[in-house]
């Protein structure tokens, strides 16, 4: 019986080895797979186990992380001060629906998982102790943000505003309407689900960041790009010399006649054509230069850059790939397939204001640890030289004419130099949909000073027949309010 008993004991040992082997298999080899399976809630629980870091505007937090739950489960929630105002900046951090915008891009810092937050990253990796969450300081100027938000809200329309510091690329205002309160979708309760369902199903798409993620036909504001190409390429040597442009202008290879809203566009000079926004002059210039020259100029301002991040990813703006000649004509006045984000058009205004150099736009000033020490700051970076400085200065004067004597009079600011360009973009089938009212501008306190702000405003407008007046009437006052807010900084 001793032999058989030993065998039985050996059998028990085999059972034990099977258990050990299987435990090793699960805990060492399969662990990573299981850790990242969709039904495993641990990552989320860990994420909300400690207070989330804050997003700062002018050194003041616009987010909060209140303790909500009694147990370990989703202990800390997310709250937002002035949620709708800053939603296009912060995005949301939802326990159910994940994160977006800055909450998403800088999640490692805000959640405290970024190894740079800890003093001893190697030890942290072993002990699995998470560092206290860090903060994200934005470049937003509260006064400019508020002015843009109020201005857009007063129109009652959908729209977006982006304001940049032309010399650095810092984003001073980033607004999109209609907006929403990210705090409503932050929790894991019924209310959050209902709020999400409502926002998700809203035909006005309040969660869409129109400033960074929506492209619009830029309409006449794109004429600034065409003018830049004409001057930079030498196609127009002197902006005050008349061009040879018929009115109306027959689109090449078609029977379509392109007309103008403004008078005096026949053979108008580039300066006059920009001031009153002649379609014909710019359409013909585009055709004369060719699509390739136009494309290169647009790209130099930042169009067609799929990798642009602020650090939130930006939907690329587009100049059509290989348009034929009539399409080139329309593309050169910001119609056909030319599309731009409000950020992109703000970059155009900023590039011209900054003597031709487009700075890389950025929204995050610096990332800090819990104690305020800097993890990483943002250095100003040149994105591209769009046009030579002399050309830029000529364009500045022309854009200033738009404001002083042309369609952009509503953006005039006493005691400051303002350059701008209005736009009304037709869209929809046969251009029947309500047009978009555009205004891009920059401002500086005095003729010799550096520009302090560049801004782009788009309003999804109602009035179809007022043409460029819409941009000047509806969008320019908003741009003016934003610029005023930055000038008095």
């Amino acid at each position, binding site marked *: *019986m*001793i*032999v*058989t*008993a*030993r*065998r*039985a*004991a050996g*059998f*028990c*040992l085999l*059972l*034990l080895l*099977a*258990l*050990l082997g*299987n*435990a*090793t298999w*699960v*805990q*060492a080899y*399969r*662990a*990573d*797979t*299981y*850790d990242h*399976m*969709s*039904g*495993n*809630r*641990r990552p989320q*629980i860990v994420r909300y186990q400690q207070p989330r870091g804050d997003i700062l505007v002018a050194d003041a937090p616009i987010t909060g992380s209140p303790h909500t739950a*009694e*147990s*370990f*489960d989703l202990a800390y929630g997310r709250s937002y001060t002035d949620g709708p105002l800053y939603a296009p900046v912060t995005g949301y951090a939802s326990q159910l629906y994940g994160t977006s915008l800055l909450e998403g891009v800088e999640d490692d810092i805000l959640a405290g998982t970024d190894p740079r937050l800890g003093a001893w990253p190697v030890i942290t990796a072993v002990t*699995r102790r998470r560092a206290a969450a860090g903060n994200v300081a934005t470049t937003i100027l509260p006064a400019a943000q508020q002015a843009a938000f109020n201005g857009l809200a007063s129109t009652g329309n959908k729209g977006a505003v982006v304001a940049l510091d032309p010399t650095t690329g810092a984003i001073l205002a980033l607004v999109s309407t209609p907006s929403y309160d990210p705090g409503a979708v932050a929790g894991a309760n019924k209310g959050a689900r209902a709020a999400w369902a409502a926002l998700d199903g809203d035909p006005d798409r309040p969660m869409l960041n129109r400033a960074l993620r929506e492209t619009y036909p830029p309409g006449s504001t794109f004429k600034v790009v065409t003018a830049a190409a004409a001057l930079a390429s030498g196609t127009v040597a002197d902006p005050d010399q008349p061009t040879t442009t018929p009115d109306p202008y027959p689109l090449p290879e078609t029977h379509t006649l392109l007309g103008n809203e403004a008078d005096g566009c026949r053979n108008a000079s580039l300066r006059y054509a920009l001031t009153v926004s002649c379609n014909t002059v710019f359409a013909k210039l585009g055709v004369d230069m060719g699509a390739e020259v136009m494309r290169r100029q647009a790209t130099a301002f930042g169009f067609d850059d799929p990798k642009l991040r602020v650090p939130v990813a930006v939907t690329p703006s587009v100049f059509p790939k290989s348009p034929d000649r009539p399409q080139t004509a329309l593309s050169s006045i910001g119609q056909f397939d030319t599309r731009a984000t409000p950020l992109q058009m703000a970059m155009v205004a900023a590039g011209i204001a900054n003597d031709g150099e487009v700075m890389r736009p950025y929204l995050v000033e610096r990332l800090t640890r819990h104690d305020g020490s800097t993890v990483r700051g943002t250095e100003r970076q040149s994105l591209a030289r769009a046009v030579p400085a002399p050309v830029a200065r000529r364009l500045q004067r022309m854009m200033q004419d738009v404001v002083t004597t042309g369609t952009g009079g509503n953006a005039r600011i006493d005691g400051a130099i303002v350059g701008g360009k209005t736009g009304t973009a037709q869209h929809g089938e046969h251009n029947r949909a309500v047009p978009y009212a555009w205004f891009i501008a920059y401002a500086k306190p005095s003729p010799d000073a550096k520009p302090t702000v560049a801004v782009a405003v788009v309003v999804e407008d109602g009035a179809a027949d007022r043409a460029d007046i819409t941009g000047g009437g509806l969008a320019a006052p908003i741009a003016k309010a934003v610029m005023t807010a930055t000038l008095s900084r």
Partner: protein
Amino acid sequence: MSRWRRRTTAAGEPLPPTRRNTEFLLLVFAVLVPVFAYANVGLARHGSIPPDTAKYGLGLGLLVLIAHILVRFFAPYADPVLLPIAALLNGLGLVLIYRLDLETPKAQAASSQLMWSAIGVILFAAVMIAVRDHRSVGKYAYLAAAVALFLMIVPVFFPAINGAKVWIRAGAFSLQPGEFAKIILVVFFASYLARTRETLMMIGHRFCGVNLPRGRDLGPVLAVWLASVGILVLERDLGTSFLYFGAFVVMLYVATARIGWIVVGLILISVGAFVVGSAEPHVHSRVQNWLDPFASIHAGLGPGQLAQSLFCFAAGGLLGAGLGLGHSILVGFAAKSDFILATVGEELGLTGIAALLVLYALLVARGFRAGLTAPDTFGSLLAYGLSAVLAIQVFVVAGGVTALIPLTGMTMPFLAQGGSSVVTNWALIALLMKISDRGRRPLAPIEEPVPLPEEVHA
């Protein structure tokens, strides 16, 4: 005392060491480790040592001390490792349950588990005192069989809880008679096989290359065994029926040395498992769940218990999250009972699981050792049977929650929440210690042996 003066027989020959002081030292560790773990949970969760740590330590220490003193008097030569391992496992189990109680403020289980542990130690004491010689237990073999069968039939008349009819309920008080019956049945098997093993080994007819015994030799034990497994299948207590089956086959093999029993056993168990697994819905779903633990996630229903358990083990990794810092409560209602090992896996890691399994392995190994040294066949078979029961139970539970085998729902001995289980296992340890005490005792009889019950082939 033995450290200073060697005990001798009346003739002046030295007696073998009793190892009681070794046991005492090990017990100190067996109490200190859970106390440390208890303080650890408090530190991890609240940043302070729980105020009742000393009370808890004293309580556990007192229970263990009582057991130890009883061993000194009633089983002085018992294996010194068994009691400390049982105490350590029970203490760790209390800490784990206390730790899970923190997540379920409405359902506190640690205090009632402590009460059941105390009852377990009382039963341990009862066995120590009442069973002067383990051989006396064998006299009640048929009574034992009847009691076991009765205990097992009773739950049929009670409603099923969580799909299995294994409970006797009276108000808030519930018992799992299958747990009690397991020791009683092993006693019956051991007693019967001890008496008939010679016959079983010698007499029989060959059938299909296998030596089969005569019906009248094997009949009663086979009948009791079939009845018990049948009842358990009816009650859908697959884990326990597998336990009985395994323990019986092991004992039969050890007693008769006939490999044929294992072959027949394996064939029966395969057929049985296949039929029940594919026909019975409750079991069928468990087999499905074992084959693909994550099916419910893909179906959009969220993870089931087994998936959650695997997530626990995965989250623990090699070193674990640390006591109190895991999320094994996500497993749900059985986190403190059937799935207690998931908490160990998550918070103590593979290291903790390995250590725990080694503890169980030591317990089983010491049990077998008690059987090897036992002076009588009944004692040996009883020790082997009880050890096999322990080993199989650990395998079925741990294998179930780590998806090595289908989940069957039993408790981890000493560790899991469950009064019946803790009480039974304390009695099991007491029996093993009684057997080892008899085996390690010096040949020169210190006291008169009790008359041997039908002991022919010692």
